[in-house]
């Protein structure tokens, strides 16, 4: 049958339906049949049966298409959700340094937590630093003392050399 042909009467339509059920129609003919059944005002047992069968088929196809669309939509939602999660987690992570260790203020003494507030822990740390300060002073003093001792020793040597020089001059 010609691709562009139209079904002009009910008998021709019923003939085409018979060919359809016999499996002798081409793809173009099936398409034409489907379009005609959707539009035509004719009605008979054969036409209604064909309409029902092809309508069911169409509905089935629509269902499949709908399922495919749903699946596609689900995929899009999944991608959008993934991007949202990455942005929601990634941007604050980058701007607020989330991956850095979480803020902690905690002090354990003799196996027990003795302070877990910022103020209390900072107070203990101040004691730590004070101990270090005292040690640093002690070390500075020790170094100063060493340098002083070196200075004294140098002066003694200079004095001795000077005395020795004077003695030599007197002998001469």
């Amino acid at each position: 049958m010609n691709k562009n042909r139209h079904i002009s009467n009910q008998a021709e339509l019923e003939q085409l339906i018979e060919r359809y059920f016999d499996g002798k129609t081409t793809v173009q003919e099936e398409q034409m049949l489907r379009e005609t059944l959707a539009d035509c005002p004719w009605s008979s047992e054969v036409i209604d049966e064909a309409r029902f069968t092809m309508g069911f088929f169409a509905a089935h196809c629509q269902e499949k298409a709908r399922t495919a669309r749903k699946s596609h939509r689900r995929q899009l939602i999944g991608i959008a959700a993934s991007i949202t999660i990455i942005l929601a987690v990634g941007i604050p992570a980058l701007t607020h340094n989330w991956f850095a260790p979480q803020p902690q203020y905690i002090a354990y003494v003799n196996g027990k937590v003795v302070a877990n507030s910022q103020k209390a822990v900072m107070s203990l740390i101040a004691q730590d630093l004070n101990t270090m300060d005292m040690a640093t002073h002690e070390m500075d003093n020790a170094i100063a003392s060493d340098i002083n001792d070196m200075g004294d020793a140098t002066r003694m040597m200079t004095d001795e050399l000077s005395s020795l020089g004077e003695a030599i001059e007197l002998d001469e």
Partner: protein
Amino acid sequence: MKRITIIFTVMALATLPVLAQSGLNINSLFDGRYKTNPYAAEYIVTGPAAWEIDLEVYHSLKVTQKEQQDLIESLVNKDGATAIDKEVQLRNGKLYYGFYTLSKTKKGRNRYIFFLNQNLAKKSPKNMVTLIYMEGKATPTQIKKLIRK
């Protein structure tokens, strides 16, 4: 599900460099063992409180057990050997005082180690070894000022 697994795997991997040890021998001491030790004290400060003093991490230990003191001293000596700047005093062949400036972290943060063995103090000796690890923007001068506050 597969995609979510990949996302979480990537995120988990991204955190690894932060959590990884920074290559210091003393890091092994900060594994939590002293938190439950009845002869030790451990202070940890990170976050805003540390930021106030231009640091990211302040971690200190104080121990009274001889074997633990020796362990700390040996690890400090190892890290001190690679320090870029140091002030050290030995007494009776043992480390009494050490202030080490270490190489910067990959993030460009300065790192410092303070060590003090008060058993060797001339004035009021005490059975205590203190180790302080500091990491942050603070310069050595700022650290010294912090100590002398």
